[in-house]
């Protein structure tokens, strides 16, 4: 309950002003393609040099929470996920926007973000010591199985058929091997200098999602319905709130999965949204509606990616280990003021620690209010004619992929992956499983090699990977997931094979 004593500090004029600046600025930065939460926080660090420690952290904390939510804006309206966390949001969110429900999708995503986010921060406040143990429980063998569990999701994610889903997942896994391998020191598939550092995930995201869409828009040209203007239906906030309340399952699954997976160092943030989306789909009676602009998809994905924010800071605040790139940047923001995260932070600087955490709590709510306001305006973007829209998206795609590491190489990677994806989409493949492969490949590989190095020095591969409660639980989950996908595929085949034959 200690945090309540420091609530007043959030509302001093200067602190509250910084909170507002961080929140609004974060929303704008988050909505800009290519500016991931990590980048946004890193850009703000120099401004905190001159501020008091608590004030600096308020700014950074507010920016972190609202960039994660802001990423939904470009994901829904432009189909460019700002960060890996927003990939799942594009699946149903952008379809909703195409159906003229952009305002509704944005409202739902901000409400779900705020609820998930507040829950995540409350977990951080009340359960930190317990969560710290959980974050440490995942060794190389467990992370390997967790990544494999993610791979099993690939088949059922946003694809017409499991086989095509798995195939595009494999393309993603192959792309992930490009670059310099840190563990064995080998160079792999570096056939062009811009691939030296591997394929940057943000640049790949932008290319895979935005470029096929741009080409489609250009291909329509001025003829036919090319100049069609999408109607945007107004959607009242009250209706959106009512809808959120009617969807407790998606909200609950999103929040729970985001909080649990967000905690695992190095893995969580990137896949929380996708895993939550997939689980919400599997548990929903309206299974078939996912991917066609179904509100549960948006709610689960956005609740998950904001629920992850609070728990993702647990390893940093308690153990002084940054569990994600963003946490590493926040660590810099603390160190510059001579504050060491860990016991030192909570014992000697409780005012800083709790003001920071409280500001994230208030920040979630402010973010929701501004987000809902923005939702009304931003949805008009869909009224822009497609030819203009295509040019704008293309410009943003080039800007976004360049700005990640100020490298033209990333722009080439973005463009070539995008053109490749355009043709793949023609044959019924989709981008989401490919990206999931790209994210999970390195996690699975690095942890398998590390695990096998440890195993061969100690008790051997079999016992290391196959024994222990956590390993067995994960293996069982993998088996269940594979069996579920196989069963669904068989059932679908039985029902659809006749129609396929007719075509």
């Amino acid at each position, binding site marked *: 309950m200690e945090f309540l004593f420091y609530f007043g500090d959030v509302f001093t004029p200067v602190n509250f002003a910084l909170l507002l600046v961080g929140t609004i600025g974060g929303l704008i930065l988050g909505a800009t393609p290519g500016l991931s939460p990590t980048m946004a926080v890193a850009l703000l660090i120099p401004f905190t040099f001159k501020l008091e420690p608590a004030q600096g952290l308020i700014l950074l904390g507010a920016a972190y929470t609202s960039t994660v939510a802001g990423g939904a804006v470009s994901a829904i309206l432009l189909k460019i996920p700002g960060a890996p966390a927003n990939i799942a949001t594009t699946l149903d969110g952008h379809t909703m926007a195409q159906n003229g429900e952009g305002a509704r999708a944005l409202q739902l995503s901000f409400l779900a973000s705020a609820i998930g986010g507040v829950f995540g921060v409350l977990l951080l406040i009340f359960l930190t010591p317990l969560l710290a143990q959980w974050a440490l429980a995942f060794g190389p063998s467990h992370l390997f199985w967790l990544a494999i569990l993610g791979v099993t999701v690939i088949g059922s994610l946003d694809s017409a058929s499991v086989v095509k889903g798995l195939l595009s997942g494999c393309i993603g896994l192959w792309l992930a091997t490009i670059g310099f391998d840190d563990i064995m020191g080998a160079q792999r598939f570096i056939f062009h200098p811009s691939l030296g550092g591997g394929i940057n995930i943000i640049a790949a995201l932008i290319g895979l999602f935005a470029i096929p869409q741009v080409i489609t828009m250009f291909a329509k040209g001025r003829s036919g319905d090319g100049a069609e203007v999408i109607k945007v239906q107004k959607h009242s906030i009250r209706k959106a709130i009512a809808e959120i309340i009617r969807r407790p399952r998606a909200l609950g699954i999103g929040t729970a999965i985001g909080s649990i997976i967000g905690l695992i160092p190095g893995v969580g943030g990137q896949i929380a949204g996708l895993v939550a989306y997939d689980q919400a789909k599997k548990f929903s009676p309206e299974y078939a509606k996912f991917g066609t602009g179904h509100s549960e998809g948006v709610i689960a994905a956005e609740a998950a990616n904001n629920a992850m924010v609070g728990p993702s800071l647990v*390893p940093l605040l308690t153990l002084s*280990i940054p569990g994600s790139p963003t946490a590493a940047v926040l660590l810099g923001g603390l160190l510059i003021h001579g504050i060491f995260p860990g016991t030192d932070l909570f014992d000697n600087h409780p005012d800083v620690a709790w003001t920071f955490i409280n500001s994230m709590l208030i920040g979630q709510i402010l973010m929701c209010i501004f987000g809902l306001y923005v939702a009304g305006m931003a949805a008009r973007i869909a009224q822009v004619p497609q030819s203009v829209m295509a040019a704008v998206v293309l410009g943003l795609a080039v800007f976004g992929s360049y700005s990640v590491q100020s490298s033209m190489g990333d722009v080439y990677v973005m463009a070539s992956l995008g053109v490749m994806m355009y043709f793949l989409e023609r044959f019924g493949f989709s981008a989401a499983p490919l990206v999931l492969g790209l994210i999970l490949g390195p996690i699975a590989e690095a942890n398998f090699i590390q695990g096998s190095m440890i195993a061969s020095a100690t008790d051997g591969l079999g016992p290391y990977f196959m024994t222990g409660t956590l390993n067995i639980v994960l293996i069982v989950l993998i088996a269940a997931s594979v069996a579920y996908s196989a069963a669904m595929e068989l059932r679908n085949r039985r029902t659809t094979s006749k129609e396929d034959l007719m075509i």
Partner: protein
Amino acid sequence: MRKLIAAAAMAAIALTGTASADEAADYPDRPVMMMVSYGAGGATDFQARIVTMTAGNEDALGMPIAILNKPGAGGRVGWNWFATQVDADGYTLAAYNVPHFIAQSIKGGVEYTTDSFEPIANWGADPAVFVVATDSPFNSMADVVAYAKENPGKLTFSGAGLFVGHHIAALQIEKAAGVKMAYIPTKGGGAAAMKAVIAGDVLGGVNNLSDAFRAREAGNIKILGVADLERSDFLPDVPTMKEQGLDVDNASVNFRGIMVPKGTPQGIIDKLAETVPVMFANARVKSKMEAGGSAIRIMNRDEVIEMWAARDKTLKELLAGL
């Protein structure tokens, strides 16, 4: 008329003359960029931002230094770019990490060697330390070596990747003690290697002194030895490897500093070599660096040239067998 032309010609000659001499005198007349070959928020990036924050002052360069991150492949992407793509006009500097870039150039596959760059000055030194979890039975390097002798190849210890300071320290410890241990390189830098130690995934680890200092303050680890010639001011109670009978020198110490590409005009190099160490010595820089637990070690251009050459020689011997 003739006089006038002659005067004009003289003036023109004088002008061009001063122009070429002024290249160094006017330098810098616009903001300078500094490439850091690691991501934003990492230790190198963080320190680079601190040591360059006073660059705009009159007693320093008089122009701000902007940081440009080019991360990837353990620094290779950034340094390759710096060695091949950059104009050698003094407006693009880079941060170096020794022994990383020297070890990489020895192992090959990159487009640079120590001869591709001209050092300007060194700002910091972060020695490698040997760490174990708080509940570990090991209390000194002697315990570690004794265990490794009894169980050859079975003592697992983590570090941030291959051919970085941690790996060099690991190789030196194994060589000095005459034992075989299992070095586990992690992906995700020193933080991932530290997590492996705290969580008990491995029995021990090599890590940065600054990160280990913080982790010890948080009560998570014990620090058994420092791989440097002297004890650190941050850890006066931790003995060096040498004091514990292991012949490990400072070859693994992570030196960070500023360099320019080969071919930069000598006048500009001289000017930078003169002003940059003064910029590092600024009191504000010192207090910010120390607050973060990072030790300042300022070395001038000549000292760095010597250090690079010495490191090149040691690392060639150490890595020859790999």
